[in-house]
């Protein structure tokens, strides 16, 4: 049962991933992508990483919604719902994708990885917490700073107005003024 | 003392920039005084020189001890002779009048900067320091040619000079590193490298290192076929810069052949001496022939440099070909060949320096270098003619003038080693005779064309400069004992060791 579910999810994640680039509109593409991530999230739950899987699903749900809205708001494709198919260097891209797949799949199949010495126990999430606040605290802190910087940066670019009115005014090279 | 000699021009250059001197005249006087100082100081150094056969009057200070590089300067017979010649030539060139293009301050400062760089090449006893000065001389010359050269072409010539010789010097840098890495502990100390010769022999590394150095020096000297940067650089440079280029910068190539290749890798050199000698011979004959066909005064003189440096390197190669111990009977001829090559460096510097200064006088008055446009100038400019004739005869190797002392020794010293090469090299003598006398005849003799009726003879400043150089040419030609003694103090231990 677990195995059958896994296979279903695996196929679903790949097919929906593929559909992202084979669909008519960007909004649909966004939801195909989300579907792929959700499938992967469930697989992660299957692999004892329940917490991570759920976080992934939640994150992607939020993100893809933003993406869809974003496309509706900004892009030339009105409402982002019209059919579209815009590709370039198609052959080369296929070759690159296939090469990446073959190479990494080959590594996955043929490489000698160490065999697991123990099964994941029920405390995996707790382990993660210990790791975050223990040995890998610095990593955790760095991730926090990165997220902070991202917030500041994204706002600085995307926000149209600030304390002093339009953010655009005066934001240019001195030689161009 | 040597350190002061070395950095005084640089200090003078900075002072020139900083001090509120205005006007070409006062700047020229000031620069002349600064340039006189190293000359005087080197005379003092010369008077203190003992001729012990090793480096003397060494001054050193730590520089990059971690890398085994230090600031170390000193003299032996070779470097003293060349440094003194350099100081003399710089003095003569700096006081020589040219068109300063309204930038006399920069001109004199750059010239003095170049003097420090040039002296540094000859006085350094640390390979890294040597390289530093070597490269700085390129920079100085690049700007001199570019800014004060003749017209648009000057820039291309300057760039070509810079690129070509930088290529050479970077190849040399690899050689320097190779030598450096072969020492243990790593050091750039030239005395150590000369004493221990860590990379001497017939191995691949030694051969490659030798080839790298030889290529660099062959570009600098220059030997055919690495000479193509030289003619345009000379033609487009202002005359005093040409003087320094021919008189001093070319010598760095031949100096390197002796100091580094002959002293640090004698065995490798002896094995590869024949190809070097053949290249030198080709330069002798080819340089002379191509010079003969030139219709531009400066180009013609420029190509004779190829010829003369060919002689010098032929002499060096002949001295290098046989190792001491193998043929005891060759000690004398090797000594002659090497002494001759060294004298050739000094003599060529003075002679060709004077000739290039004269082209400057020509340009100031006639605005042309084309031989076909000139003629009969002796009527209007007898002093000019006389000095030019002496310089030309010196260059073609007339006895009683410096060139003969050099070339005769090279021929005699080289003959037992490479009789055929020397015999063929002698052809250069007759071709240079043809080209110089033809030059004299077509520029100074014959009827005076109408357009040069107002041609002025040399003025006092020019005469002083030239007479000084010519005087040394004559003195070396007539009584070179003082010079040969100093050179011999360097040559004798080298050929007998």
């Amino acid at each position, binding site marked *: 049962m677990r195995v059958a579910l896994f296979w279903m999810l695996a196929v679903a994640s790949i097919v929906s991933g593929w559909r992202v680039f084979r669909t008519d509109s960007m909004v649909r593409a966004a939801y195909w992508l989300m579907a792929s991530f959700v499938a992967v999230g469930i697989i992660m739950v299957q692999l004892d990483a329940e917490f991570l899987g759920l976080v992934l699903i939640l994150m992607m749900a939020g993100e893809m919604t933003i993406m869809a809205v974003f496309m509706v708001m900004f892009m030339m494709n009105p409402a982002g719902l019209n059919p579209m198919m815009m590709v370039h260097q198609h052959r080369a891209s296929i070759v690159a994708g296939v090469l990446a797949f073959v*190479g*990494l799949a080959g*590594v996955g199949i*043929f*490489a*000698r*990885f*160490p065999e697991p010495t123990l099964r994941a126990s029920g405390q995996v999430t707790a382990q993660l917490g210990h790791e975050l606040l*223990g*040995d*890998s605290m*610095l*990593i955790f802190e760095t991730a926090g*700073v*990165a997220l*902070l*910087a*991202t917030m*500041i*940066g994204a*706002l*600085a*670019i995307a926000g149209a107005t*600030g*304390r002093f009115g339009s*953010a655009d005014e*005066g*934001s*240019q*090279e*001195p*030689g*161009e*003024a | 003392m040597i350190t002061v000699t070395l950095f005084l021009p640089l200090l003078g250059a900075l002072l020139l920039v900083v001090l509120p001197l205005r006007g070409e005249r006062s700047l020229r006087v000031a620069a002349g005084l600064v340039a006189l100082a190293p000359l005087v100081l080197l005379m003092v150094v010369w008077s203190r020189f003992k001729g012990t056969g090793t480096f003397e009057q060494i001054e050193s200070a*730590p*520089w*990059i*001890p*971690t*890398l085994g590089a230090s600031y170390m300067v000193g003299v032996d017979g070779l470097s003293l002779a060349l440094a003194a010649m350099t100081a003399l030539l710089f003095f003569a060139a700096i006081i020589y009048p040219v068109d300063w293009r309204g930038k006399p301050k920069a001109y004199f400062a750059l010239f003095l900067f170049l003097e420090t760089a040039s002296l540094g090449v000859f006085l350094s006893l640390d390979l*890294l320091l040597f*390289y*530093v000065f070597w*490269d700085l001389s390129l*920079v100085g010359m*690049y*700007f001199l040619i*570019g800014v004060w050269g003749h017209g648009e072409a*000057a820039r291309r010539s300057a*760039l070509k000079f810079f*690129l070509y010789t*930088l*290529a050479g010097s*970077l*190849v040399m*840098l*690899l050689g320097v*590193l190779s030598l*450096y*890495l072969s020492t243990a502990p790593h050091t750039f100390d030239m005395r150590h490298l000369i004493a221990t010769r860590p990379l001497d022999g017939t191995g691949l590394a030694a051969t490659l290192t030798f080839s790298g150095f030889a290529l660099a020096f062959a570009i600098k000297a220059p030997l055919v076929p690495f000479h193509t940067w030289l003619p345009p650089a000379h033609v487009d440079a202002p005359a005093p810069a040409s003087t320094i280029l021919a008189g001093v910068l070319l010598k760095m190539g031949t100096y390197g052949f002796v100091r580094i290749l002959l002293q640090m890798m004698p065995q490798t050199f002896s094995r590869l001496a024949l190809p070097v000698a053949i290249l030198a011979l080709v330069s002798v004959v080819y340089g002379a022939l191509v010079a003969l066909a030139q219709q531009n005064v400066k180009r013609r003189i420029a190509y004779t440099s190829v010829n003369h440096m060919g002689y010098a390197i032929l002499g060096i190669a002949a001295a290098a070909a046989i190792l001491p111990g193998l043929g005891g009977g060759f000690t004398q001829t090797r000594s002659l060949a090497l002494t001759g090559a060294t004298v050739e460096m000094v003599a060529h510097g003075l002679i060709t320096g004077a000739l290039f200064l004269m082209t400057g006088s020509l340009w100031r008055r006639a605005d042309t270098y084309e031989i076909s446009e000139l003629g009969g100038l002796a009527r209007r400019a007898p002093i000019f003619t006389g000095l030019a004739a002496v310089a030309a005869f010196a260059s073609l190797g007339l006895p009683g003038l410096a060139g003969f002392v050099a070339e005769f020794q090279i021929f005699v010293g080289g003959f037992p080693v490479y009789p055929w090469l020397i015999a063929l090299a002698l052809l250069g003598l007759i071709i240079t005779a043809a080209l110089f006398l033809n030059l004299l005849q077509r520029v100074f003799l014959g009827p005076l064309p109408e357009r040069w009726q107002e041609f002025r003879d040399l003025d006092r400043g020019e005469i002083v400069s030239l007479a000084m150089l010519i005087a040394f040419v004559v003195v070396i030609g007539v009584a070179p004992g003082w010079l040969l003694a100093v050179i011999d103090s360097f040559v004798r231990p080298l050929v007998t060791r």
Partner: protein
Amino acid sequence: MSGMTVSDLIPELALLVGSVVVLISALFLPRRLQPMNAALALLTVVIAVVAAASLPASLKSGFQGSAMHPWQHLSFSGTYAIDSFAIAAKVIVLSVTALVIALSVDWFRSDPRQGEYYALLLMSALGAITLAGAADMMEMVLAMLLSSATGYVLVAFHRKSRRSAEAAIKYYLLGALTNGAMLYGVALFFGLSGTTVFSDMAAPLRLAGALPLVAAWSLVVVGLAFKIGAVPAHAWLPDVADGAPAPVAAFVTVAPKVGALIVLARFVSVLPEDGAGWRVVIAAVAALTMTLGNIAALWQDDIRRLLGWSAVSQTGYALMAIVALGRSSLALPALIYFLAAYALGNVGAFAVVVALRGRAKRERYAGLARSHPWLAAALTVCFLSFVGIPPLAGFAGKLTLFGATIDAGYTWLAVLAVLNSVLSLAYYARFLGPIYFDEAPEQSGASMDRTAAGVAIVSAAALVGLGLGTDIVFSALANSVLLR
């Protein structure tokens, strides 16, 4: 667990706190006083530099590092290295940051969001120095993320500039792709070694098969190649140098590179010497990078693009040190010295551009020696240092790099580097020619940014000073060991 002391992170914390302070002050300062943020940022950087430089003194005892440098140690459970090279990299990055802050004051004076700019700049510097200390795969990934994410924003900071926006998106797209590749590589490394800490990875990796290892490290190297601007992920560099605000260009072409090269050194020294083939590949990358950078720079008529391409070529030279890593004791000191020289030269050259209010076209530099002699001199010094003319700092950098490369048995690479240096002179001289040999058209009366001019001159003077005082760097780094 012993090394988890906050005192190891004083420079990093100073930057973090400083950027937050700047953010807050940006919220409260009136518009007129916004440039004060620059002073705050500068103060922060100065504190951080002092803290970084005094780390060895403050950590004098209690660790069992190398005999020469007992204070060197891995901190935070092996994820963060405190060693000479990391500290040197921090000093370089922070010095560059300080100079860039000085360049930015006038340049961003009219920008209403300059407060955020300085905060992001500090965070970007934080990312770069964290990269230099990273001794763990994850730490490396996150430091790169911090550095990149802030870098994209900094490049895009001119909201009205079409070029700025384009440069930023290209920077971002390339970064995201290579980062994705690197993540997969990191995952494989975790699988092959069971850990992400460098110090624990070396042993298990020796047992790993060759080809999986190659796949793994190649993907990581591609990610790092983006950060340092090496082939094949170099393409952003000229575009960013061209399009980004000039002070930002000065920063992003240098700072991340310094950190990333140090972490690259740490990373490759984890790989097994035999059977991974990394040395040859890095040599090939170095060769391609320097050659491509120089050749493409040849006919540039825009000084900013020229500097971008020359930044590519300088990466190529720097990679020579990685090639020689472990085979020549000179390699890492040479790398540090070279990076210091390169950083100064690059900032100095961009400072000239900033001082001239972004003037970029070659023909507009005609006669600069007459109109702005000091700027011309500074630019000349920077360019000649890039070429490697002694006694400027670039010379000793190249000298030791070449030496290390020859020592490591890669003479062909040194020869190629020599040819490239000659080539590079051609394009630098192509700019120097008009500056010195041409007369200026008529003076456009454009004002000059005096602070930036000062920065240019200080950089040039520092190049001379560093060149003459080469030993300071080399003796400080002598016998240091790269921790991993």
